[in-house]
């Protein structure tokens, strides 16, 4: 990984939609160099995708319920937690899945349209898996910040004087 690659990644991590022309200028490199770099990073699966951060509470009629579930599982000899994790994260309802240190093993983020949709998934799909010992479900009540982006309206008026020495 070169310094320029790292700098580019940090830029598009914040703003995935930034056009290559702008990136080239900001990084002080040629346009085709940026394009090659992006292609290469995608090929190496360093860049896995480009997504938007959306406040669904403002998109009327599409509000989603998000739950974070602490899952205790029995690891399997030879494959550890990976096999059971895969069984879980392949469900399309699973938004994220992490192996954790501490009192439980997997942290599973679920997204659904209603609470009962999530409750059904947990009772029918998740807790019925052989390796799953227990689940604790926490529903998110409000999103303040996600992926470094604050959800509360920030006052974007520039408080600075228009001209100063």
């Amino acid at each position, binding site marked *: 990984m070169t310094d320029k690659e790292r700098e580019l990644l940090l*830029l598009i991590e914040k703003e995935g939609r930034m056009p290559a022309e702008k990136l080239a*200028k900001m990084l002080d490199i040629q346009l085709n160099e940026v394009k090659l770099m992006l292609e290469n990073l995608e090929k190496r699966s360093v860049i896995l995708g480009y997504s938007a951060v959306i406040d669904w509470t403002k998109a009327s009629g599409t509000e989603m319920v998000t739950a974070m579930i602490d899952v205790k599982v029995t690891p399997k000899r030879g494959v550890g937690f990976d096999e059971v994790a895969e069984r879980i994260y392949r469900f399309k309802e699973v938004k994220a899945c992490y192996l954790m240190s501490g009192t439980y093993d997997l942290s599973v983020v679920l997204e659904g349209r209603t609470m009962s949709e999530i409750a059904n998934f947990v009772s029918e799909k998740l807790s019925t898996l052989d390796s799953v010992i227990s689940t604790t479900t926490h529903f998110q009540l409000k999103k303040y910040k996600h992926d470094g982006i604050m959800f509360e309206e920030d006052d974007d008026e*520039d408080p*600075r004087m*228009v*001209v*100063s*020495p």
Partner: protein
Amino acid sequence: MTQVKKHEAKLSRAVESIQPSGIRRFFDMASSMENIISLGVGEPDFTTPWSVREASIHSLESGRTSYTANAGLIELREAISDYMEERFDVSYRPEDEVIVTVGASEGIDIALRSVVDPGDDVLIVEPCFVSYAPLVSMAGGQPIPVPTFMKDDFQVTLETLQEKITPKTKAIMLSFPNNPTGGVMGREDLEKLRDFIIEHDLVVLSDEIYAELSYDQEHVSTAAIDGLKERTILISGFSKSFAMTGWRVGYVCAPAAYAAAMLKIHQYAMMCASTMAQYAALEALTNGRQEMEEMITSYRQRRNFFVKSLREAGLSCHTPGGAFYAFPSIKASGLSSEQFAEQLLLEQHVAVVPGHVFGEGGEGHIRCSYAASMAQLEEAVDRIAVFMNTIKKEG
């Protein structure tokens, strides 16, 4: 009862001789207009890092609202001393060689007042921050402008210095990275000035407020040049690097004799810098360095973008090595910098500062601050390009 006589203000000659800053007119014009994109701002567009703000809130909650030592909290002076040593390889004793000031602005004032007597000449490397010359005058001295030019990357040259030196010259005011030019002086560039400074026994006042905002090479402090530390007063602060302009907290570092002289003025004029701002500054040095580095990266990227875009718009612009200003030449437009800035503001609603307000060598240039969001910079260069095209057509 005697008749009441109307009082006429009895002002000192020193203050009456001072002209208000040329920036004022543009401030008034721009303030009265709507839909302005301002590239005229001399401060970061970032808000102070939250950890710094939070530390200041905590200091208030804890009731730390009394005076500090005149020279500032000893913990802060120790932190400044460590930071200067680690970052710029200059060593100052926190006990008697560091003073916390009310912004670098106060630092400039007390540095000049501690050195300058009536009748002394002070060389001022221009274009530069607007306060140097008036403060020299207020101290009774004569400011002697030493211009710098784009062809020299806005570095000061020995030739121009030699033209301006007289037996009355007592001090030289340097400011690199420079506001408004973005010019920088590296180690070799500063070393070229050393013999001249020593030969003429000058005091060096070095305003290094933009030291951290140096993009292509490490900043070298004037005090880090062999033989110059003993005659250098180094002025800096937290405003630009930590986005803390409104806190008004800066510092001066100097050999003990100079520091003691400055402390006399500071203790009578200021008592001490704001206590809560000092705790905030301490937090900035202790835990704010990573966030500072991120801000610097962002300025560098915006500089790259902005300077390239200005050139594409038809302006000739040197690559500013530091600070957050581009200082393009507008000579090709056939307009003075004042006319250019005024027309750009009225026609395209982009506020910049005409170069001449920053002193000699500034005419023919405009100062554009790129401490603005990328969206604003993009829109501003588009408008500047349109403006350049209309000038071409008219010309």
